[in-house]
Every structure is written in C-alpha cells, then in structure tokens.
C-alpha cells in the first residue's frame, strides 16, 4: 500500500532538488554554523589551545606541579565519588517517591528539590553558612553547640547532594514514570514478586537512566568550584580550586594549565560516557500515569518520611538565608559593648552606601547593576549565537552528529578553566568589562541551544503541511505554527541565559575587574571579610540573588509549560 506513495514522494523530492541547485544544503548548514563556531573558536578553542600549549612548556613539568596535580586529582575523585554516592542514596528513593506516588503538596515539593540546581553556587554556600556556619542560625539559637560545619568535608558533600539530587529525580524519575505499568503487571501475573519485578524488569529498563544520571552527578561534583571554595576553604583543593589558586594566588600559570588539561581529559571521558548512556536511556515507553496514593502503612510511612526529610533538607538552607539577612545576632565591626539583637534592615540599606575602607570602591549595590548589565548582554549574545545552531541541530545531518558534542563541550569544561583560558589568551583586555559577558555566553550557550532545539524539532512537519494545505502562505505557516512555539522557547532560553549569567561564579572570579564586581563576587568578598556587617551584607546580597534566580526559574517553567515540563 505504501509503496506507490513513497515512490511519488521520492520523485517529488528529486524534482525539488533539481529546481534548487543554486544552494547546496551543506552550504546552508555551514552558514548556520558560521557564527556559533567562530565564537567558540575565538573564545573557547583558542584559549583551550593556549592552555594546552602551556603544558608543553617545560616549566609545567615540575615535580612540585605534579605533586600538586596528583593530590588535587585524588581529592577531586574522592569527594566526587562520595558526593555521588550520597546523592544516589537520597535521589533514588526520591525519584521513586515522585514517579509512583500521588500525595498532597507533591508538585511544590518536587519544585523545591529542583530549586538548588538553578541557584548560583554562592547562594547555596551562603545558605548553608546562614544555617550552619559559625555566625549562622543554628549556632545562634544553640550557643553551646560546638560543631563545625563550614570548612569540613561533610559541608562539601551535603552541598553537592543539595545541588544534584534533582538530577537523579528528573532523569531516573522520568524513566520510571514513563515505564509502562503493564510491564510490571505482566511480570506479576507471570509469577514475579516485588523483588523480582525490580530485579528482572524495572532495574534493567532503568539501568541506562541510572547510569546517565549518576555520571552527570559525578561530572557536576567533579567540576564543582564555588561550593568547595566557599564551604570547604582552600585546604580542600580539587583540580578546580587548585587551578584558581595557582592562577590567581600563586600566579603559576603553567601549573594551572597542567591542572586544567587534567581536568579537561577527565570531564571529556565522563561526558562521552554520559552521552552514550543518555542516548540509550531515551527509549520511550508508554507514557502513562502510574501514580498511586499511598495506601498501606509501609507506603504511608515511606511517603511521609521522605516528604519531611526532603522538605527539611531543601527548605532549611534556603530559608535561613533571608532570615539571617534580616536579623542581627552579633556586634558589627567597630562596635563595642552592648550587642544589639533583633530585626534589622541595615544590611540592605548598607548596600547603597560606599563606605571608606569597605571591600569595594563602589557602593555594593553597583554590583547588582553590573550583574544585570552583564546578564542582558549575555542574553542577546547567546540567543544570536544559539538560534542558528539550534536550527541546524533540530534536523541533524551527519555534520551535526559531529558538531553537537563539539558545541556542548563548554558545558563539560569547567568555568574556572574558561576563566584561565581568558586570562592566558586575552590577558591584556582584562581591564575591559566586556570579557565577562563573553565568558557568560560561553557557559550559557549550551543551555540556550538545548532549550531551543527541542522546541524547533518538536514542530511536526505534518502540522506545517496541514496549515499550508488549508491555505496558509509560508509566512502564515511560520506565524501560526512556528512562532507561538518558538516565542515561548526563546523566552525560556533567554531567561536561562539571564539566570546563568547572574549566578556565574568560577569564570567571573578569574576575569572580573575589582571595580566591576558582580553579585556573586560581591558575596564572596563579603563572606571572606570579618565583621558582622560584612556578613550581614553577604546575606542580603545572596538573598537578592536568590530571589532573582527564583524569579528566573519561575519564568522558565512558565514558558516551557506547554511542551513537556521535563528537561
């Protein structure tokens, strides 16, 4: 039956091909790729090659450098392994909770677990500091407690779990809930008990998703920077922290370059493995709802317990931050004698004052304006570069199979490494504030492309054909079919770029000029200074950043709503 239709189709395509010999398709594709690839070449591959060139310099191969690299590599693996393990421990039951159970407040709890992932590292660090730090709420409320949190390995691990649990929930949870419940029922009717249903049916089918999620978490833990620097301190040197220390504090660029290359090799391997598993885990099964209300005592206990655990774990650090920013618990610097406790808005009003002897040359609020400016520039730049790439990737040909991982490469390479590359390559322009939005665009571009591409690819050709058969001109087709979908995707992608730029820490820390601080840089500086006022201001700024990030997140969710709601 299909034969003659296919034949006719082929003939048609053949004719169209003959009519349009002027522009070969590969040339059109190349034009689409021209700007994104040029940008990546100038700001990513060139700096990368400079870093590589440094390591061929003999001075990089120094016994000291090797010793530093060796211990940094060991610790990086060690903490990433532990973090991933802990994340799985919390994440897998949570994924099961969200994929299988229906309970009150579920969507809110689910959204709550996703919040940290989009939060800037400085906010998370400030949040944990506000909760468990030496000046935090716990120490204030229980003055006799003597535990130390900031500056310990558990602080790093817990912050990583806080960040990445949502990855497990999303990837494994999605796979679990898209699993046809009939498979489980069939297995049961064939004599499989719960254990065998999991062992023989569910886990084998989930395995690619679990591997993919685990690798992704590991990758994020491996390249984590802000959390480790701010919560662990410089005594916990991962590759990432060590790159920063060597490049900025020791001014030992060859050593930093060596570390960066090591880092790159590792992340490359993980990325390749991840892509493998991720592509395998995309086998879509019947997307049917498998939700049940908890009925048995065991189910109720599990659901209640995890709801409490998750809400406490995710709410406490996030809520401590605004609370701490509005309450004074200690003497400000320079004050003697009586200490005023209680509610205060000083930390916010202080942001507008340019104090002599403060850590800035400008009123701290200027950092907010800088950040907003950088973020705006990043949005424009990343959309301009992201659109052509996303269009090409929406209909992948052989070229795209090769270019897709290439364009995602900045995602795998760490922000600190991007910063290092900028220092090495464009050091003489570091006085200009313009390098920052370029670095931010580099970080945001993969996200922008990944947001636009599915929207572009999701528009079925049949819809366009139906519209044109109903009399719509090509422009009308675009206006009626493509535009409404793309408008939302563009807004989502733009907000993504905006939020990423606002929170970017690693690269900015290396390349931002002291007189043009961004919000995260300001928070880091405040946090590292003594004195209650500085601490309070870091809390205030972090609260502002958190609010901005949450508003951004809500906007993204709103704009992607009609599509899938899942990453």
């Amino acid at each position: 039956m299909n034969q003659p239709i296919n034949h006719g189709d082929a003939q048609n395509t053949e004719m169209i091909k003959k009519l349009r010999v002027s522009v070969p398709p590969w040339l059109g594709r190349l034009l689409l790729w021209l700007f994104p690839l040029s940008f990546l070449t100038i700001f990513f591959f060139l700096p990368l090659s400079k870093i590589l060139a440094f390591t061929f310099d003999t001075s990089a191969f120094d016994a000291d450098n090797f010793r530093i690299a060796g211990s940094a590599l060991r610790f990086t693996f060690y903490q990433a392994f532990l973090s991933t393990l802990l994340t799985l421990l919390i994440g897998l039951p949570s994924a099961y909770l969200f994929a299988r159970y229906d309970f009150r407040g579920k969507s809110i709890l689910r959204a709550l677990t996703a919040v940290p992932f989009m939060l800037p590292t400085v906010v998370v660090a400030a949040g944990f500091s506000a909760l468990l730090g030496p000046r935090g709420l716990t120490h204030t409320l229980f003055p006799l407690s003597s535990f130390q949190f900031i500056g310990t390995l558990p602080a790093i691990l817990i912050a990583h779990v806080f960040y990445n649990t949502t990855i497990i929930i999303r990837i494994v949870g999605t796979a679990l809930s898209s699993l046809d419940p009939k498979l489980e029922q069939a297995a049961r009717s064939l004599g499989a008990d719960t254990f065998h249903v999991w062992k023989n049916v569910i886990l084998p089918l989930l395995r690619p998703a679990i591997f993919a999620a685990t690798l992704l978490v590991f990758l994020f833990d491996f390249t984590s920077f802000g959390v480790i620097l701010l919560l662990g301190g410089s005594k916990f040197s991962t590759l990432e922290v060590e790159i920063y220390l060597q490049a900025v504090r020791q001014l030992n660029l060859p050593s930093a370059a060596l570390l960066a290359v090591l880092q790159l090799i590792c992340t490359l391997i993980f990325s390749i493995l991840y892509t493998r598993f991720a592509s395998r885990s995309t086998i879509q099964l019947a997307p049917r709802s498998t939700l049940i209300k908890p009925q048995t005592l065991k189910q109720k206990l599990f659901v209640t317990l995890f709801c409490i655990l998750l809400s406490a774990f995710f709410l406490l650090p996030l809520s401590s931050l605004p609370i701490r920013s509005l309450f004074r618990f200690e003497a400000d610097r320079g004050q003697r004698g009586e200490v005023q406790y209680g509610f205060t808005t000083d930390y916010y009003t202080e942001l507008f004052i340019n104090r002599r002897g403060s850590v800035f040359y400008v009123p701290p609020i200027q950092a907010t304006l800088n950040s907003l400016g950088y973020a705006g520039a990043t949005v424009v730049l990343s959309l301009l570069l992201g659109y052509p790439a996303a269009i090409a990737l929406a209909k992948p040909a052989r070229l795209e199979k090769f270019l897709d991982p290439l364009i995602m490469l900045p995602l795998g390479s760490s922000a600190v490494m991007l910063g290092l590359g900028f220092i090495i390559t464009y050091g003489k322009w570091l006085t200009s504030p313009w390098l920052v939005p370029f670095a931010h665009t580099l970080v945001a571009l993969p996200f922008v492309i990944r947001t636009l591409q599915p929207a572009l690819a999701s528009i079925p050709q049949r819809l366009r054909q139906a519209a044109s058969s109903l009399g719509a001109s090509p422009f009308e087709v675009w206006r009626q079919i493509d535009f409404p979908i793309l408008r939302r995707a563009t807004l989502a992608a733009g907000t993504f770029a905006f939020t990423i730029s606002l929170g970017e820490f690693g690269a900015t820390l290396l390349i931002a000029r002291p007189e043009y601080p961004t919000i995260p840089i300001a928070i880091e500086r405040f946090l590292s200074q003594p004195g209650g006022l500085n601490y309070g201001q870091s809390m205030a700024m972090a609260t502002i950043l958190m609010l901005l990030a949450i508003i951004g997140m809500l906007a993204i969710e709103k704009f992607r709503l009609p599509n899938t709601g899942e990453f």
Partner: protein
Amino acid sequence: MLEVRNIFKTYEGRLLLNDISFSVAEGKTICLLGASGSGKSTLLRIIAGLESSDSGIISFNGLDLTTTPPHLRDFGLVFQDYALFPHLNVNDNVAFGLKMRRIGQTETVERVATSLKLVSLTEFGDRKVTDLSGGEQQRVALARALAIQPRLLMFDEPLGALDRALREDLLNELRMILHRTKIPAIYVTHDQEEAFTIADRVLILYDGKIIREGTPADVWAKPESAIVAGFLGLGNLFDGEVIAQNEFQTEHGTFTVKCIYKHSRGDKVHLLVRPLPADAQREANILSGVVTDVIFQQDRFKVTLENGLYIYLPDAPKVGQKISVSVKVECLA
C-alpha cells in the same frame, strides 16, 4: 473453577463495580462484554490481583485467593498493548514466568518451544520483540502467558490494537488454542463479534453490573433489556404503551406482540424490531415508510426509512419509494 462473588469497587467516589458475581467452569471461555468505562478491565485486574476490591471474594477450586498477591495466583494475563519486556528477546520473554518459577533449563527450553509452536512463532525465538509486528507481538504475549501453564487465562482487549483482518485470524487461532489447551479463560472486549466468536458464555457489563448472562445464542435471541439490545445492535428500539392485552401503541403504529413479561394497561415498554423481514403469514406487524437511504452490504441491502428505522432487504428499493414490510416485534423487560 474460578468463582467471583459479590465484588464491589468504588473509584474516586464512583461505584465502578456493583455486586459482581459469576464463575468460570473448567475449560470454558467467558467473555466480559461492555462499553469502555463499564468497569470490565478493572474487574479483570481485580481477578488478577493487580487491584483490590472494596469487598467480595475471588476463589479458585474452593480456595480463597482474595488476598493472594498476583504472582502467586497462577493466572496468565494478556494485555491489549502486549506489555512485552523490551529488554528481553522473544525466548526470554516467553521464559520469564518459568524463570520466576525456578523451572530447570531443559524444561524451560522445551516449554518455550511448545508455547511458541502453539502460536506459530517457532522461528522467532532470538528476535528482538521491538522488531516484531503488532500481531507477532501479541502472539509472543500469548505464548508467554501459555508457557506458565496457568490455571486461568485472562485477556484484556487483546486484539484491540490490531487491524481487522489480523484480528479475525488471531481470534480464530486463539479459539483453537483455548479449545486445545482446555485452559479456562476470561476475555474482556467491547466488540460483540469478538465476544460471540470466542465465548462459551457472554456476560454483559453495564454501569458496574452484569445485566445479562448466557450463551451467545441465548443472549442474541433474548436480549431481555433495551440496554442489551441497544448495545448489541440487534435492531430498532422504540417505546410503546400498553393499550390492551398484547397490544402496543407506538409512534410507528400499533403492534401486536405476545409478551412474556406481565404488563398492565398504560405501562410503558421497550419494543425491539429486528431488521429482518419476517413471514407475513405468521406476523401481523407491518413496518412501513418512505425509503431515504439504501446501502449495499454484500448479500443484502440496508434500507433506512424516513422515520429513522432500518431493515435489511434482499432487493434494493428506490429512494423515495414507500414500502411496507412484515416484521417480528419483541417486547423487552
């Protein structure tokens, strides 16, 4: 013998199953026939143990299974969308239940081969299930259920996803397999043709209740209620009022019907006019009207009249022609 006694089930405040009782005798196939939403799939899942009822008893050979978990019931289940394990090949899918029962390698191989032979898929053992056609996948699902030699087989709209020709072939094959293996079976469908082809007994489910139960021929001949007659599409249904003993006044004229149900004057009853012309000598009832449509149906013509009634005739009248046909009128409860 499977016995289902007084099953009740509410779902989101709605009574989905309202006092369901029936039994399936050794080697018999019963068919649960009902529209979508009639609760038939839920009933099947309750029998399988995949869902629990609010009250009622499921027992097999006198043994109460109501609280037995599904994997210990030994009931085979075949779904509409096959539910084959995508990560296993055909052999491993069929062997799954045997593996769960820890049956030895040699016997497993043997029973898998036997099952695949029963469904005529002998050469398919090493194929990936995702590469098979819909009909082939359903055969594998059937083989998988047969391999465990279940004491009861259950089918949940097993042919619903297949096209018509394939459906007929598979249905006949299924009928033969059920006869040969003598496994009692419950077959759920909304398709009456399927039901009448495969079932020894038909149970019609409506609004959570079994409203008619009997052999296909019995149900066909005596639908008993207007709902059953309407659901089975037995003919023209309309209301009548009792004006005298066996005399009914309707909008299509007055009919004389020997009614097995007791009626008194003024009662409203449902009347059924089968669309086949009847012997004019024996039937006093005549249906007449102007022809508005004639549809060719292989060996007959479906003739629709202006009053909305239809009748099958061997020869095609002209549209606009006025015709009168002797018909058999039945009264319903």
